[in-house]
Structure formats: C-alpha cells, structure tokens
C-alpha cells in the first residue's frame, strides 16, 4: 500500500476518533497468519477493535475474511501470531482457548438456528450458567430488543428470513459475549429486506452496546453499517479507517478499484499544473501531493460523479461514448478517451448522446482527488 518512491504529505489518514487508547481496545490481532498446507489464507494480520464499535472486514471472496472471523471465534487455530480478547491472550504460540470458553458470539451466514428447538429455546441455548427465572427474563429482554416479543413459541422454520436473523442475533447476544462476530450477515436475505435489516442490525448492536466484527464482500453494506472498515485483499489488510475516509481517499489502487465504479485518468505532474487528456488543472487537485515530482506520471482516481460528458464536435472531443448504462435513477456513459483510458460519467437524466458519439469530458469534482504512481 506504500506508494513506492512517491510520497505524499499524508499517506496515513489520521483516525478521526483520535489516537487509539490501549484501555478501550477489546480485541487485538498481532501478526496473525493462517496457512492450510502451502496455501496462506491470512498473512500477518494486525488489527485492533475498540470497545463498542462495529468494524467490518471487507474484501472479495477468498481474501481471508471468513478465515479471520473463524479464528476470532476459536473455530480455527492461527498458524502464527497472537489474538487477545479483553486483555487476555486467547490464541498464541502456546495458548488456545476453545470456542466454548472464549466469550465470543457469532451470527452465522445461514443463521444456523437449531431446527429442533423453539425460538425461546434457541435464544436460551447459551444461558447455561443462570437459573431458569434469570434465563427466562434474559430471553424476554432479548426478544424485546430484536422486536420479536411474543414469538418465542414458534419454530425456526415458521420464521421469515429477517425474523430468523433477529433470533440468531438474540441468541448470540444472550450470554453477553465480549465480542460479537457476524459472518456475511445479510447475504441470505433478499435485496429489499437487506437494506431494512442493515439499519435494524445496527440499531440492535448499538442498543446492546456490544463490540462487533462483521465480514462482507458487499461494499455498500460495509460502508453503511460500520464505524470502521478494514479492506482485505489476498490475506492482507489494505486499509483501515472510517467509511468516508476509506471511500474518499483509498490508499491503494486495489481499495480504489474495489470501492465504487472507479476509473483512472493518466496524468503528468507539471511544475504548477497537472496535465491530463481532458485538460490541465491546478496541482492542488491531487490530494496531498508534495512539492517537486515535476515530470512524474500518475493515475488519478475519478468516479462517475466526478465527470460529466458534453456533446462535442470531432475536433473538440476528448473521446467517444462506448457504452450507455441505465441504472434507473441515472445514466452512466462509458467514454473511451483518445489515449485509450476508459472513464465513466454520471448523468441524472438521459442526454441525447448515443454510442459512438464524440464527447468532451468535464471534471466537475469539488474535492481533491486520490492518485497513484503510474503502473508498468
């Protein structure tokens, strides 16, 4: 993620919540690695999770996020590294605390409700150390919390997907875990329910005041529910930060292209300007560009909302439209620039532009843009 020989004034985005205080760290991973034979699923992962926050591990499938979650739960043992939970080492070279003794709750992707038990019995399952009255009371509280009072006698197969998820949440929260893990929590729900349950799950977690780690490959989900997002690729952390910082200022090309419909604009850094095939701009356009570097080639991150296409004559055009993508509320035009770069331009309503039409592309962004050293 380091930008090789080029440096910027602010390579590391300062954490918006201020410096991490060791006291409010609940979970700490230090150099955690997991190998299966010769495959390395997770490599040298270091991360801390603060009390009460919801941190999401975001990455494409196979990036090692689920393996990380299972190691946190005690269902897999790390090959190297140390995991500490509430100031106690739960996995390390010589220690391994089993899942049942770890104080970790987990909401499984398919919810894994016990089909032979009622909703109440499911929620009460982990309450083995309380007497019946206390357990009953706790179950009632939790069914209230997940907004399912009076549904305790149903069996799991009588519940809708959203209700099953509420029960799974209640069940894992019941024993008051130090940390709650959520494995792709919304992937088993249909699209409309997904949006509704995102807000609902966040409300429940915040109301319960629990520290939570979730994993997903869905960027919209990660950005909308999380306090902080950690982007993973190929077993390694690419960037950790609050959702806005990660989305607006991706620190690596991978993060940039994984979030949003990213396009890259080739540019040459001049003494006072940045020159691109769609025009020259002030150097301040590039975020955190240090002095010097005149003559360096860079790629500038442009998302569809940063650009607008305007009909032009062949002579004035920057490129031609190669594709029209209708998304419902808006149009996205794919424009192939004269130098071969393809960028996307967002329009809120249909313009009278067809595929093959020559267009000029305007930069309409009102914020500085992230950039990366030219590849190859």
């Amino acid at each position: 993620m380091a930008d090789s020989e080029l440096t910027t004034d602010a390579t590391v985005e300062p954490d918006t919540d201020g410096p991490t205080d060791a006291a409010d760290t609940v979970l700490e991973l230090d150099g955690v690695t997991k190998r299966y034979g010769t495959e390395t699923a997770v490599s040298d992962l270091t991360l801390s999770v603060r009390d009460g926050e919801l941190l999401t591990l975001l990455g494409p499938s196979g990036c090692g996020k689920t393996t990380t979650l299972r190691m946190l739960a005690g269902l897999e043992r790390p090959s190297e590294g140390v995991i500490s939970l509430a100031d106690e080492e739960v996995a390390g070279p010589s220690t391994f605390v089993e899942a049942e003794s770890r104080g970790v709750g987990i909401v499984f992707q398919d919810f894994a409700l016990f089909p032979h038990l009622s909703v109440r019995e499911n929620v009460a399952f982990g309450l083995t150390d309380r007497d019946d009255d206390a357990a009953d009371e706790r179950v009632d509280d939790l069914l209230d919390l997940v907004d399912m009072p009076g549904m305790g006698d149903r069996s799991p197969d009588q519940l809708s997907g959203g209700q099953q998820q509420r029960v799974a949440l209640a069940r894992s929260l019941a024993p008051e875990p130090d940390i709650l893990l959520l494995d792709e929590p919304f992937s088993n729900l249909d699209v409309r329910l997904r949006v509704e349950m995102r807000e609902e799950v966040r409300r429940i977690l915040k109301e319960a005041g629990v520290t939570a780690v979730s994993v997903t490959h869905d960027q919209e989900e990660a950005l909308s529910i999380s306090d902080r997002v950690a982007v993973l690729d190929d077993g390694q952390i690419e960037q950790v930060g609050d959702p806005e910082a990660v989305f607006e200022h991706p620190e690596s090309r991978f993060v940039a292209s994984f979030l949003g419909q990213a396009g890259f604009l080739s540019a040459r850094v001049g003494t006072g300007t940045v020159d691109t095939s769609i025009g020259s701009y002030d150097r301040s356009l590039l975020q955190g560009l240090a002095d010097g570097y005149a003559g360096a080639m860079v790629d500038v991150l442009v998302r569809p909302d940063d650009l607008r296409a305007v009909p032009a004559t062949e002579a004035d055009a920057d490129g031609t439209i190669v594709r029209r993508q209708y998304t419902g509320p808006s149009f996205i035009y794919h424009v192939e620039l004269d130098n071969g770069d393809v960028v996307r331009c967002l329009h809120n309503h249909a313009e009278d532009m067809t595929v093959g039409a020559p267009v000029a592309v305007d930069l309409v962004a009102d914020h500085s843009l992230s950039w990366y050293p030219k590849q190859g």
Partner: protein
Amino acid sequence: MAGSERLARLRDAVGGDDEPGLSLAVLAGAVAAFVSLPLVGLLVRASNYGFGHLAGLLTETGSLGVLANSLVLVFWVTLGCVLVGVPLAVLTVQTDLPGRRFWTVVAALPLVVPSYIGAFTFVSAFGPRGDLADALAPLGVERIPAIYGLHGTALVLILFTYPYVFLTTRAALLSFDGTLVEAARTLNHSRWAAFKRVTVPQILPGVTAGALLAALYALSDFGTPSIMRYEVFTQQIYVAQRSLGVPEGYPALLSMQLLAVVAVVLALESRIGEGDASYVSRGSRQPGRITLGAWKWPALAFCAAVGVLSLGVPLGVLAWWFEQAGSAVFEFEPVVAWNSLKVAAAAALAASLLALPVAGYAARSTSLFATLTDRLTYVGYAIPGVVVALALLYLSTEFTQSLYKTVPLLVFAYVVRFLPQAVGTVRSSVLQVDPKLTEAARTLGRSPLGAFRNVTLPLIAPGVAAGAALVFLTTMKELPATLMLSPIGFETLVSYIWLVRGAGSYGAAAIPALVLVGVSALSMVVILAQERYNG
C-alpha cells in the same frame, strides 16, 4: 412469495387443470384393487370362520405365547441393531477412524446376505454338530452354547439387519449441518455437550426410521426363525398351514395378529416420516472430526468383530462347503436355476407393466385418490410374505381351484410383494420428467397417449428397467411364498437350498447360495445406481 405459495397450496387441494385423465385414474385404481386382493382374501376367510371362533382360539391355543415370542424377538433385534448400527455410523462419519471408507463398505455389505442363508451358515458353523463343535471336540469341549432359539435368531437377525440403522443414521449424520455444532460451541457448549444437545436430537429421526425398518424385517422374516427353531408368527403360520392337527382358522388368526403388530410399526413409522420435514437443515459444512486417540483400538476391534461375524462367517462357511463337497457341488440340476430365472422374469415383466399407470398417476396427480392407489400398492410390501402366500392359498381354494399352486399364482404373489419397488423407481423417474415436455408434445399435435409414447416413455425407460431389475433380483431370493405356492415338483434355487438344508447335504447348497448372495449384491448395485441417476 407467500402469495404464490398459497396459490400453489390451493391448487394442490382442488386439483389443477393439469390433472391426468380419467382413464389413467381407472387403470391405476384397477391395479391397486388387483394387488390388494390377497388382503381381501384373508379377511373373507377370517370372516367365514366368524370372529367369535377366532377369539376363542386366541385363548385355547398357544397364539399368545407366539405373540410374546415375536415381540421379544423384535425388541432384542431392534435394540441390537441400534447398538451396532449407530456407533458404526458415528465412527465412520464423524471420527478419524483409520480406513473409514473401507469400514463404511464393510458395515453396509451384510445387507447382501439373505438372512436365511446367514442363519443357515451360522447353524452349520455353530450348531450342535457344526464345524465349530467338530473342531473343538478333539480338545475335549463337548458342548457349546446352543445357537437355536431366541439367542441365535436375534443374533443372526441383528447381524444382517443392522445395516438399515447404519445407513439411515449415516444419511442423517451426513446431511447434518455442522454449523449448528459450531453455533453451539460459540454458545459455551463443549464438543460433548453440543453432541448431546444438538447432534443427537437431529439424527434421532434417522436412527428411529432405521430401527423401525429393522423391527419390520424381524417381524416378517420367515427363514431365520424357521432355521433357528424359534416360534414366532411367521414360523408358526408356515408350520400350522402344513399340519393337519391344528384347529381350523389358526393360521388365519396368527396372520391377523401379525398384521396388527405390523400395522402398529407402520403407524409409528409414518409419524416419524411426518416429523422429518422440519429437520431438514440447509448448511453443508461438516463438523470437525472427533479425534479418537487411544480409543482408536477398541473402535477398530468393534468394526472388525462386526465384519467378521456378518460377512466372514457366512462367506467363509459357503466357501468351506464348496471346498469340502468336491464334485457334489454340481449335484443340483440346471433346470432349478432355469425355473428361478423364469418366474423372476415373469414377475419383473408383470410388475413393470402394472407399475406404469400407478406411478404415472401418482407422480402427476395431487388428488386423494392418487395417493390412495399409490399407498394401496404398498400393502403387499408391508404384509409379510408368509401372510401373502397364505392369503393366496385361501383365495385360490375359495374361488379359483384351477390356480391352486400354479406358476401364475406364484408369480402373482411375487408381484403383490414387490410391485412397490417398481412403482417407487418408475414414479421417481416420472417426477424427473418436466411436465412441460408433454405439454409441448401436446401443442405439437400429439394425443395424450402419443405424447406418453414419444416423450415420457423414452425418458423414463431407465427407471422402468431399474425397477424391473430390482423385482427380478428380489424375486430370485424370496423364500416363504416360493415354499408355500410352488407347484409340486417345481424347484427353484431357493426351494432347492431349503430342501438340501433339511437333508443336511450342505455342499450341494454352496453354489445356489453363492448365486443368491451375488443376486442380492446386484440388486444393491441397481439401487445405488438408481439413486445416483435420480440424484
């Protein structure tokens, strides 16, 4: 989504527009009525005696003792099957037992040994003048524990029917969602506690289903208790029917009692079946394997002991006979094998033809009548072979003297017994054929019959063939109906084995017995291939 489900359920209740035609319903109904004739015959006979007379017999004769014997046998066999089958299933599915695949095959294989051949070899090996006694005699051992009676019967039945429990438990364990165990562990349960509170309740329906199958088998098996001389219903019905001195109606009374017990087992089974649906789990992650550690050795010894007793003994004894008898093994006449083939082929052909309308109707119709006809054809499966044979004897003496102990009557008995196998395979093949294909054929100008001939039939042909093969193979080894209904002087492999067993010339039985084991093995292959085809 809920709306379309409700619509589908509504359609199921009233029967949609795509209900098959009336002629198919009539055909299916006729087949069902035809194969339930024996049951009717038995009831007619019983009512001729008058139920008062039968009730009197209940106390006068030893029939209550027979009932007690049967129940005791069923109890021990069922218990034994669970105690052997469940540990084997857990060991081969959920632990790190060395050679799990090998032991899985070994544990399932005893199903291919017809239990009467198993019993036969056990008597030969462990009987009072058997091979073991002969081997021990020079060492001064004069008596070995008797193999006859309850102990021997229960032992042999357990050894050859536990695979039912093993297979259903194994299936339950394999389809069990391992995520549930992980969920339990993250909810503060140890592996053992999770096994007790999550795994056991989930596999219980599978274990129970297998146990009920074993119970049903123990109840209806005729060969083993007859060879082991233990007085249960099947053995007593056979003896009473052939003896002159027994009170009139006694075999019928015993049959009615046996059917009542069978009905209880079937009722239990159907209740288990209903509960099953809610136990379907969607996840597929297998739970982590249990590490056996030093327990590995007792576990291996257990597997090996079961394998030696249920496979080693019967196959070893058959090989020993073969070896010892020399040229005597070829004493039996080829016509015996020819007879077996002939009746089995006739039964297979008849069963396949009769299965087509029943299976086609059951697969395409949701009406109550379709369910009824489908279930009626299964009656022959539930009724023990001895009872079917007895009922057909009654029926022929009562109405059609000319059919008494003829080959057509014998074939009819086989069809009644094994039609469900053909119906089952044909129905699942019909279900695999998209109804839209026949609709397409109809819109392209074919009549319903034409669409069936040109589209459905070619597609279900493999299923029909598999069903016919199954009927053929199971007919080859059927014992009680063959003994009771064969025309005088008409010998098949099965009746030949029975004959030479009585005469004590074991060597002559070696080849027919090995052929029947091979036949059973083939029918297993057909079933497995069919499952893969449907899967």
